[in-house]
């Protein structure tokens, strides 16, 4: 894990649940091994069967390695004025969403997530390019807690604005 923030001030990033790798496994089976199996068993030429198997096996190893690193690279931190979310293995990206710019949030969990007691937190902004950012692999209680903390809107700037309005 090499957070970008290490260059200036180290943020205390929190990681996500590594059981997310289950999705990698699932994706690998669906996208890689099922088509590969069809090729391996359908072809009558042994060389192609062996070649396809070896290729798929090597690809799986790399995908597993990459995804493990990807989920490990994921980190987030709740800061005074917003939330910092960082990820990426080769191309690293840290996104900061100011608290006052959060339009709405979503806590989402699919069937597998639910089995593992996990949830995703999506934070939506009014930006035109991405417009939202998602933290996967949060414990369900943690996702709700994080959302509440984010929406608390205790930024000093906003309090000042509220004073002016009042």
């Amino acid at each position, binding site marked *: 894990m090499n957070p*970008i*923030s290490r*260059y*200036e*001030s180290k943020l205390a990033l929190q990681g996500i649940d590594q059981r997310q790798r289950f999705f990698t496994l699932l994706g690998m089976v669906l996208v890689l091994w099922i088509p590969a199996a069809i090729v391996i068993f359908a072809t009558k030429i042994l060389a192609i069967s062996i070649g396809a198997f070896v290729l798929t096996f090597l690809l799986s190893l790399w995908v597993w390695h990459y995804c493990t690193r990807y989920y490990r690279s994921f980190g987030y931190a709740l*800061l*005074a*004025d*917003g939330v910092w979310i960082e990820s990426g293995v*080769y*191309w*690293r*990206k*840290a*996104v*900061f*969403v*100011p*608290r*006052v*710019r959060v339009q709405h949030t979503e806590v989402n969990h699919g069937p597998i997530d639910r089995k593992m007691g996990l949830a995703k937190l999506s934070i939506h*902004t*009014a*930006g*035109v*390019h*991405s417009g939202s*950012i998602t933290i996967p692999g949060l414990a369900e209680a943690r996702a709700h807690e994080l959302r509440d903390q984010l929406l608390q809107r205790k*930024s000093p*700037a*906003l309090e*000042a*604005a509220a004073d*002016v*309005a009042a």
Partner: protein
Amino acid sequence: MSSSSGNNKTRELPAQAPERLHPLSALFVLASQLFTLWPFLLVALVAGLRKDDGWEFGGVLVGALALTLYSIFNTLSMRYWVLPDEILIKEGLFDRTLRHIPLERVQNVSFNQNVLHRMFGVVELQLESGAGLNSEGKFKVITLARAKQLEAEIRGFQRLQPANSSASTESPAQADTPSSEALYQSSTGDLVRLGLIENKGMVVVGAALYFLSQSKLLPESGYKQFGVWVRSQLGVAHGPFYYLAVALGSLLAILIAVRVLSVALAIYRFHGFQLHEHGSRLRVEHGLLNRTGGGTAKDRICAFVMHDGLLYRWFNRVRVEVMLPGQAGAAQGEQAKTGMRFLAPSVTPAQAHVLLDRCSGINLASLRLQPLHPRAAYRMSKWPVMGMAAAGVVIALWAYKAWSLQWAAMIALVTASLMAWTLYSNRRDAKASGFALTDRHLVIREGWFSQVTYIIERAEIQELQLKQSPFDRGYPMASIATELRAGSMVTAMPTIRYLPAGTACALMRVLQRVQPT
């Protein structure tokens, strides 16, 4: 602050008599139908005549006629009421709609006036209140006087609403002076320069050539004959450098012709460009035959974009645009039609500085940019130049084997000059680029040959992205991209590239302190 309470918003229509569109609306609906629907029909007609299925075409024709009649009556059936705090629009023949547009929510009032409109003294008015993908209130068409009155009513109402959710920092002193002041007016000289710089003619010629090649208007043999003619004029006995000279010569001739077209286009589009300030609002108007325009509250502007570059510097001009929220439709080419896009299409840098100071309170002239990473130029050039060198060597070797040493030499020459240009322009790029931070703004400048300066309102930043690619890591460098409410999916986010990683992180920390809007 929605004073239009529940009772007001019942389904019943108000007692006062509704207003209607100008009767000539029928004519304009017909005209727009002619321009959008009927060209396809003509094409279908031409294509259909070759086959013997005239009756099918007749069906299509009847359908199109019915559609045209329907849209005319549909438009004419519109009624509207201007109430104290909202505009009520009832429209539709079969599909009835009753639309409430609260006056305080109207973001843009834009109008469009083409030659036909001007002949009859009418205007097409659009009220936009939401994301701007489609306008909520479209008045096609009303008299110019009524349009101006309507806009004044909306602005008058908004001035009385101090705690407007979107436009809140309007100071009373400004609000009480609705008098308008012209901030900038383009001269023909400005527009000639703009045409020469922008070279929009190239796009038009390119598009025309594309459509010519796609349609079967020119016979296939025409191209072949042209090729044969070119070859006969050139002869075959000349070396590669002769071809290079001919290519450069014809390129030059085409360039000149295209520039002339560009000047004409610039004048057509921007003739009589005017920027007015009405209290806290800005308003522009431009066009030779088609007068278009739009306005915005100053505090709705997310960023100013100043386009500069080598050509701009030669002509001592810059182009200043504004980024407004709710123009996401720009991807579909809607932006030019509705709302305000340009602050000034062609002004001297000094004028631009004055305008920006006036509109956003930033003094660009006195701003000192902070530099990029000292090795930014190296980082920009390294891989492209190595790639070019490799490709050049491979192609030159191949040309030597296949043709002659002369060809190989020419390819080497071209590659070398491209490499030299890349190295040189990247050096200039790195020197010219940088960023600056003030209390209210983040200024990003990028590029040298073609330069863009973003003046971003810090309070408008929706999201900050700190990025590092594997190519950045060794130096180490990082980029910061800013996500705004304005722009479109197809345009890039304003980004500071090739910053020292430490500086980037420190800048992120400063930018995180968000000020209230």
